[in-house]
């Protein structure tokens, strides 16, 4: 199953390899990207295909050595647009080529509308990062991951 991407994957620094998890680009300028021009949004499936995640970040892309903020909405993959309630979100990141992760723990706050605000995501080196968004729903934990290349 494939999910339509809101837009601007490139602006968020998403490498082509990340799109292979079932995400395809859509026409730019839709959805949240229009409502908040300083942000760019992407959508992708969790690795097991259970959830669809809409993630918006800075439109200019990720910047090395700067604390980053993301907004995350988790929806049922089988019912796009339907929010998943009663979940927790864990956020982490790793540099596979370096075998190390991040040095600061991101803050994750659940909002009243069920979406999540992620702050202090600090990617301190240029290169290939994998960002992990783990959705915890009752007995299930399913990972969504997202490749970014920082220059």
């Amino acid at each position: 199953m494939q999910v339509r991407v809101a837009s601007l994957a490139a602006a968020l620094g998403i490498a082509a390899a990340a799109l292979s998890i079932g995400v395809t680009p859509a026409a730019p300028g839709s959805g949240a990207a229009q409502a908040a021009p300083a942000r760019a949004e992407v959508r992708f499936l969790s690795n097991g295909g259970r959830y669809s995640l809409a993630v918006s970040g800075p439109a200019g892309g990720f910047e090395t050595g700067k604390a980053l903020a993301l907004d995350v909405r988790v929806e049922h993959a089988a019912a796009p647009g339907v929010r998943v309630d009663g979940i927790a979100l864990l956020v982490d990141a790793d540099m596979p080529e370096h075998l190390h992760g991040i040095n600061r723990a991101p803050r994750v706050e659940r909002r009243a509308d069920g979406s999540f605000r992620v702050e202090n995501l600090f990617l301190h080196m240029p290169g290939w990062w994998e960002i992990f968004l783990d959705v915890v729903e009752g007995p299930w934990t399913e990972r969504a991951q997202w490749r970014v290349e920082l220059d």
Partner: protein
Amino acid sequence: MARRAGLTRRGSLAALLAGLAACGGPARTPAGAQAEASGEPAPRPRPSAELVAALDEATIRRVLRHGPLGPPEPDPTNRVAASPAAAHLGQRLFYDPRLSLSGMHSCASCHLPTRAFADGLELPVPQGSSERHSPTLLNVAHQRWLFWDGRADSLWSQALAVIENPKELGIGRPGLARLVTRDPLYRAEYRAAFDAEPSDAPEFEDRTAVHAAKAIAAYEARLQSDDSAFDRFAAALAARDLDTAAEYPDDALRGLLLFLGRGNCRSCHVGPLFSDGEFHSIGMPPRGGGRPTDPGRLRGIELLQANPFRGTGPWSDAPDSERAREVEALVRSSEHWGQVRTPSLRNVARTAPYMSQGQKPTLRSVLEFYSTLEGAVAAGHHGETVLAPLRFSAAEMDDLEAFLRSLDGRDPPEELLWAPPKPR
């Protein structure tokens, strides 16, 4: 090839330079290549505007991420960080040997203005055996974490730790408070800086000592060293001033492109300080050989989060600031074992020896280590594995050295290089 970045001249060596940026190999002029073919000694490639004009936009963007240096971010945890009166008091304290138990050592004993505010020693020995090399204080206000293991999150907290440590200065907070309170000149300068009286009474000595340390930090924050040849090159590139950019030596430019390209040095040495400000293990063997014994960042985080003089502590002037709260978010795991802070490369040619224990005496020896990784020790199961022998040629190492020398900046103003004169 990447689109040009609006430079005013077009170079005929664009393809050659694009390859250089990608693989870091040395550039050879056509004339040089012909000379080599004919058996004559190859002339050193000369600076040329064409060399600069051939830089593609992506390379220019990478260059500009490293300079010019600019001012440091303000430290909200020190309300007098930008105060001239506090800096004046701090400067006097910095050069005062009464800060040491022996009465013979000051901050300037390990951070000599004549040695780019380092000491030129492998390990300093003011009061006993120190375990780590003295880094330069030039541009230190740009550092997010202080000490090789980052166990201080501000300049004032770092200064206090040295004054507390019996292996370093060692007079402690009571001694510092006593000195500032009982010396009439210090007392007057303290009053001017803090609009308060110093006191060495037990209930006030911490406050007085912290203020004094914040004054030292205000002085150290002025030890800015910029305007290097690289900074001038970067500024010229930013302004698309090709003629000025072409004044950058061509061997330094080749070294820079190798640094940004095949050498991938910018993986850690990135940003205006040529440091990511974070912590890594490069497998450098410890002094005396054997396995690493310095826990580095693993212990540094523990010490920092327990330090009452951290940014979120009661002595901070902005404990709720975003900057201060970064301490609470630090992740501590076994992968931090042995990691030390990425040193800035600014003024690196003036601050030998190198590495956290001064293991490498020269720039060349550092480059040779990266070239071969000879003697490298494993960083541990979760350690970084990104390093691989870079196999630099001798010419490439020459170019890298030339580039590193181009990071030598201008010294701070002369009036900052010694204790202020005492008023008559």
